[in-house]
């Protein structure tokens, strides 16, 4: 028995070592940094311990902007992308011809480089002296006025960012949802059909509960992923996100470390810990809510 226990730990050792060195130690380190005032990474010294870093970050207009951007992004893209993915997956599951083709098409963004996609979005949305961009063709066609989606008003930029994020995260969700839908036993649908269940009721009362664990997984990872958004904003708006009011929390952390205004690991750590606290809270809420709606068979 004792020998077995030892063996167990031995097998776990590589993973534990890896986790400790690359996850747990940095996490603790960040936590400590966030309380050390005026930490200097060159001399490894600080003036003292306190909450000043948090106070600074929470009063920094750039952070507040990043916080607002991130929240808007999360609240819009997570529900929308999950919903649209669900609709597309249901569509894909109910058609037979060309299903493989569509599945491939919908999966393509997943394997496309973020920056390449960013370039394409620039062509679609950017307004230059030579062209208004493809999106504006549609806007003007319906009688609207051309908008600069990349350098223009806040809502336009946010629209592009959300649009982009949704488009990028959907392939994975569609992939997971189509396989979840396919794994629902056909007998349940037959039983529902014999009992005269309408299509909508079948979907809400049978399909949704059956795939609820997958939905829950997608929503949780969706929230976490969206809170950690950064590269998408860079791909669209370049690296100087603060100037464009398009920064995200992770972007703020990065800027504090390495950006033009960087060199402040304490502020970066404080911001990172705040993000961690937010994600943790949201995930806990998700877990609590899920107990009521998620059915594990």
């Amino acid at each position: 028995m004792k020998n077995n226990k030892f063996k167990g730990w031995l097998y776990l050792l590589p993973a534990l070592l890896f986790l400790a060195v690359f996850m747990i130690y940095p996490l603790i380190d960040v936590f400590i940094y966030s309380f050390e005032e005026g930490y200097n990474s060159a001399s490894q010294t600080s003036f003292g311990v306190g909450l000043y870093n948090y106070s600074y970050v929470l009063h920094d207009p750039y952070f507040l902007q990043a916080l607002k951007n991130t929240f808007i992004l999360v609240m819009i893209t997570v529900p929308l992308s999950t919903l649209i993915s669900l609709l597309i997956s249901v569509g894909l599951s109910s058609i037979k011809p060309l299903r493989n083709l569509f599945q491939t098409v919908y999966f393509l963004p997943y394997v496309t480089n973020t920056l390449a996609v960013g370039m394409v979005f620039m062509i679609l949305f950017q307004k230059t002296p030579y062209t208004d961009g493809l999106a504006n063709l549609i806007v003007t066609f319906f009688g609207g006025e051309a908008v600069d989606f990349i350098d223009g008003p806040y809502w336009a930029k946010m629209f592009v960012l959300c649009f982009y994020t949704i488009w990028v995260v959907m392939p994975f969700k569609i992939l997971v949802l189509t396989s979840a839908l396919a794994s629902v036993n056909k007998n349940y649908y037959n039983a529902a059909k014999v009992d005269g269940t309408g299509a909508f009721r079948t979907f809400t009362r049978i399909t949704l509960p059956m795939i609820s664990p997958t939905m829950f997984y997608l929503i949780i990872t969706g929230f976490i992923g969206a809170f950690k958004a950064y590269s998408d904003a860079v791909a669209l708006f370049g690296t100087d996100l603060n100037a464009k009011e398009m920064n995200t929390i992770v972007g703020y952390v990065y800027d504090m470390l390495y950006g033009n205004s960087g060199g402040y690991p304490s502020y970066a750590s404080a911001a990172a810990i705040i993000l961690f606290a937010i994600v943790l809270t949201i995930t806990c809420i998700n877990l609590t809510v899920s107990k009521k709606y998620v059915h594990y068979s």
Partner: protein
Amino acid sequence: MKVVFQHLTKKFASRSGGAKKEVIAVNDFDYEIPDGTLVGLLGPSGCGKSTTLNLICGLIEPTEGRIFFGEDDVTDVPCEKRGVGMVFQNYALYPHLTVKQNIIFPLQNLKGKDKLTKAEMEEKALRAASLVQIENLMDRKPSELSGGQQQRVAIARALVKMPRILLLDEPLSNLDARLRLQTREEISRIQRQTGITTVFVTHDQEEAMSISDIIVVMKDGVIQQTGKPQDVYDEPKNLFVAKFLGTPPINTFDGEVKNGSLYIGDEAVLTVSGVADGKVVAGIRPEGFIPKADGHFTCALSQVEVMGRDITVVAKHPAAHNPTVRAIVSSDNLSAINGEKVSFDLKENKVFLFAPDSGERLF
């Protein structure tokens, strides 16, 4: 509600071996199920019995032919409007709903003038539940029930809206032996109590024989014989039906009819009148043997199995199709059966003659 099939045919496209060809699952099914009966569709795997059930239910559409419920032609009526109740082989209970919610589910689908109040639904659900005796399990989830209990819930769910026809797909195959006996009596009781025309599918002849009012024996999509279980057993129309019904199965031999006598091997074992001379397949039910010292039918004795009331004589015969011949005789004969050989007389009504090529019954 009687169910009438008129030339019902279902073909499936199959792609076995690369070449496209059709599989005829149900072939020219022409039959009428009388109102209020319990009918067993019986046959080996792949004989089209489940397809027939799905055709009645409306889950699949026939290639040709019509189906009537009473006087209504329901061939083109979608499954959800046919008013049938179905119990699936694996029960298909919704795992996220409680027993009560499962049973109420079909009622909640009713719309318009059929719409029920919550109290009415609860009452109907309770009535269906009490019919199958699961009132005390209403708040459990299907995963907390045994196989037999799940089966009952599935039956209650199928019955709750008082379907015109109740269909059961292999209702007993997922139950253990003891539960199977109990459940088949239960199904028979529920059917009598409700009077709903019930069709069930099984590959187990004992199961079908024991509870059905009528059995329909199928093979390769074609009805072989229909009728009361005992009639079909006593008067099989062909070799397949004779072989399929009965445990232990019928003993078959190569035989020949000469001058009104049946010869198995060199012995004339039975007088058969009205059968033309020629080679035949002789089928003898295990209970068709009478041990007799000077009997005409002699086998090499290999073993005697004592079962209390009866004994089974296991013997060998060179003309038999199977390695052993089984005869079930009264245990009174036990002392007389010993030595190398055993001789029998045959009961005429337990011996059937079939044409060797077509398998059609000759006698």
